[in-house]
């Protein structure tokens, strides 16, 4: 647990100088004590003030991952990759992050491709092996989603419902929303506390992103 006075001191520094690099240190400390919402706000503001600093986007991505905001995490990892130069260890971390995001969004092929890129970017074989093991341990949401989509298509056919637009699974603690896209399906999983309407908006955005080819 970080000392409260360190957080107070950095908050004071940031209040005096909102552009201070202390923002990232403050965000790390806030995250360390479990205040991820506040940490992410601080990190996001820092990234907006310093859009060319890869470390700011790296922190935003990691915090978005902790909140399972896969879309935001993906975008932040992409910024890290566009900013971090060859040899920067953040590149490997960003590819590992993108692999996990792709996996959670039900795109195992994209996850595997990202792991390959992580290896090429210098991730240690142990780190890549650990990432693969983690994905295996968490199951294959892509496979379950594929099976559900097959059942939806079967139901739509037999009941004369026409082309399906979306399927939503509300569950205790999680929503999963799936929609067809030009390149398969888009899957969005969200905490149940997130309003369903917001989840569906994120699903729409995911469908558009996949159609635009903007997602690895």
């Amino acid at each position, binding site marked *: 647990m970080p000392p409260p006075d360190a957080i107070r001191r950095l908050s004071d520094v940031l209040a005096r100088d909102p552009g201070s690099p202390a923002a990232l240190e403050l965000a790390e400390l806030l995250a360390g004590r479990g205040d991820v919402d506040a940490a992410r706000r601080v990190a996001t503001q820092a990234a907006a003030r310093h859009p060319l600093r890869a470390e700011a986007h790296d922190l935003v991505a990691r915090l978005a991952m902790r909140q399972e905001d896969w879309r935001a995490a993906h975008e932040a990892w992409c910024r890290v990759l566009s900013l971090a130069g060859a040899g920067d260890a953040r590149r490997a971390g960003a590819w590992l992050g993108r692999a996990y995001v792709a996996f959670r969004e039900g795109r195992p092929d994209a996850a595997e491709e990202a792991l390959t890129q992580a290896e090429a970017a210098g991730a240690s074989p142990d780190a890549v092996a650990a990432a693969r093991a983690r994905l295996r341990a968490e199951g294959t949401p892509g496979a379950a989603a594929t099976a559900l989509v097959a*059942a939806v298509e079967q*139901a739509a056919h*037999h009941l004369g419902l*026409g082309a399906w637009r979306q399927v939503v699974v509300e*569950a*205790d*603690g999680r929503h999963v929303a799936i929609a067809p896209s030009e390149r398969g399906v888009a899957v969005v999983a969200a905490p149940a506390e997130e309003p369903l309407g917001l989840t569906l908006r994120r699903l729409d955005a995911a469908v558009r992103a996949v159609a635009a080819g903007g997602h690895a």
Partner: protein
Amino acid sequence: MTGADYTGTLRALTRQRGVSGALLVDGRDGIPIASTLDVGIDADTVAAVAAVLYDRARQVARDAGATDAGVVHVEAARGALCAVGAGDFVLVAVADPRANLALLRLALLRAHRRLLA
């Protein structure tokens, strides 16, 4: 709950605008238990496909870290299907595009509570 009670619960669902029928399915084998589907909609078919769909949705929910699925809704060009598990049963509503899915979802949850009471 008797067969008449089941039917009464299903009829309450079909009073929603655009709902063309509701049925209670044994989720283990996809056999209908009670139905108020409109003429022309085959209850056996709806029951079979809905049971499979709900089973697959449960798997997706578990893979996402949940213990079980709740309401599942499918929206399509010419209608919708909503389902919710109730023990071994699955309560299913089929609707046409006139249906308000948010209201249908609430009606389904009300019917679900009646079934479990």
